[in-house]
C-alpha cells in the first residue's frame, strides 16, 4: 500500500498567515535614522569631497604650471625637457578626465537597478585596468626615453658630472627612482583592481545567473 501523507489542512492558508506574521514582525521595528544627523553627515562628507577634489585639481594645476614655466619662461629649454613636460601634461589631462568621468558614471548608476549598477561597476573596473595598461605603456616610453636621454645628458655634461657626482646620482637616480615607484604603485593597483573585478564577477554570477 502506498504510504502518502496528505498535506496539512489549509497549508496554503497557513503559509499566507505565516508570511503576514513575518511581515508584521519585520515592520514592528519602526525606528528611523535621525534626519538631522543624516543631513549633517551629508553636508560634512560633501565638504570633504569638495576639498579633496580641489586639492587634486590644485595639485594638477601646479604640476602643469611648473611645466608651462619650464617650457615658456625658461629660454634655454632643451628638447628632452619639452618632450617630458608635454608628455606629463597630456598624461595628467587624461588622468583628470578619467577621474571626473568615473565619478560621474558611478553617481548616475546608483539610481539604476542592482544588475545595471554591478555591470556599471564592472565596466568601470575594466576601464581602470585599461587605463593602467596605458599608464604602463607610457611609463615604458618614459623609461626608454630616459635610457637614451640620461647617457646623452651625461656625455654632453661629463665635466660637470665628474666635478659634482652627487648631482648625477640625485638627478638620474631620482628619475629612475620615480619610475620604479610608479611601476610598483601600478602593480599594486592592478592587483587590487583584479581582485575587485573578480569579486564583482562572483557577485554578478551569484545574483544574476543560474
Amino acid at each position, binding site marked *: 500500500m502506498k504510504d502518502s501523507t496528505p498535506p496539512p489542512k489549509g497549508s496554503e492558508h497557513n503559509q499566507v498567515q505565516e508570511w503576514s506574521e513575518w511581515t508584521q514582525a519585520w515592520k514592528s521595528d519602526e525606528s528611523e535614522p535621525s534626519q538631522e544627523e543624516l543631513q549633517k553627515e551629508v553636508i560634512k562628507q560633501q565638504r570633504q569631497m569638495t576639498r579633496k577634489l580641489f586639492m587634486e585639481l590644485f595639485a594638477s594645476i601646479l604640476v602643469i604650471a611648473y611645466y608651462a614655466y619650464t617650457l615658456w619662461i625658461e629660454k634655454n629649454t632643451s628638447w628632452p625637457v619639452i618632450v617630458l613636460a608635454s608628455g606629463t601634461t597630456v598624461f595628467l589631462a587624461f588622468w583628470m578626465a578619467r577621474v571626473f568621468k568615473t565619478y560621474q558614471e558611478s553617481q548616475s548608476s546608483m539610481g539604476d*537597478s542592482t544588475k545595471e549598477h554591478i555591470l556599471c561597476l564592472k565596466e568601470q573596473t575594466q576601464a581602470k585596468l585599461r587605463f593602467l595598461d596605458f599608464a604602463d605603456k607610457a611609463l615604458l616610453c618614459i623609461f626608454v626615453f630616459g635610457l637614451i636621454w640620461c647617457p646623452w645628458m651625461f656625455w654632453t655634461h661629463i665635466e660637470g658630472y665628474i666635478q659634482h657626482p652627487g648631482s648625477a646620482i640625485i638627478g638620474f637616480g631620482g628619475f629612475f627612482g620615480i619610475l620604479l615607484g610608479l611601476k610598483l604603485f601600478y602593480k599594486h593597483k592592478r592587483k587590487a583592481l583584479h581582485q575587485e573585478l573578480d569579486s564583482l564577477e562572483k557577485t554578478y554570477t551569484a545574483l544574476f545567473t543560474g
Partner: protein
Amino acid sequence: MLQYAKTIDKPMPPPKKERQDLTKERMVNRNRQQQFAEAIELYGASLRRLVRSYTKDQEEQKDLEQDIAMALWKALVHFKGDCSLRTFVFRIAHNCSISKILRKRSSRPQHTPFDETQEATTTTEANAEQQLDMKQRQQQLIHAVQSLPLKYRQVVTLALEELPHAEIAEVLGISISNVAVRLNRGKEQLRTILRKERI
C-alpha cells in the same frame, strides 16, 4: 451627525500609500533638500531595516546608513521620476550596500552582539509581554534573514517591505518570474532556519 461634522472640520491625513503617490508626482519639481528630507521621512524606517539585513555590526550599520544617505543625496540630482521614489530609494540602498560588501570582502568576522541596546518603555504588563514576544520574533526573523544567501535576502527583504513583485523586479533588474522563484525559495529557507532556531 456631530461626528460627521467633526470629520469634515478636521480632514484625516492621507494613508501612506496615497502620500507616496503624491510624492512621486511632486518629487521632480522640488529642490534636492526637500526631496532628500521627504525620502528619509517616508522610507527612513525601511532603510534601517534593510541595512540590518546586510550587516550585524552596529557600527557598520551606522556607516552604511550614512553611505546610503550620501548616495541618495548625490543620486537625487539624476532622479527624473521615471520610477517611483520608493523604487529609486531602494535601488540606491541595495546598490550602496552591495558596493560596501564588495569593498569589505575581506573584512573581520562579525562578533558584535546583535541589537542589544533597547529603549526603555513604560507599558502595562500584558503589553510588555506582547511587545517582548514581538521583539523576540523580530530578532529571530532578522537573524534568519541575515543568514539567507544574498540573492534570496534581497528579494525577501523587499517583499517584507510589501513591495509588489513588479517593483522588486524593477529595483533589482530581474524578471518578475525570477522574483517569484527567488521569493519562494527564500521563504522556504527562512522557514527552515527559523525552525532550527526554535529547536
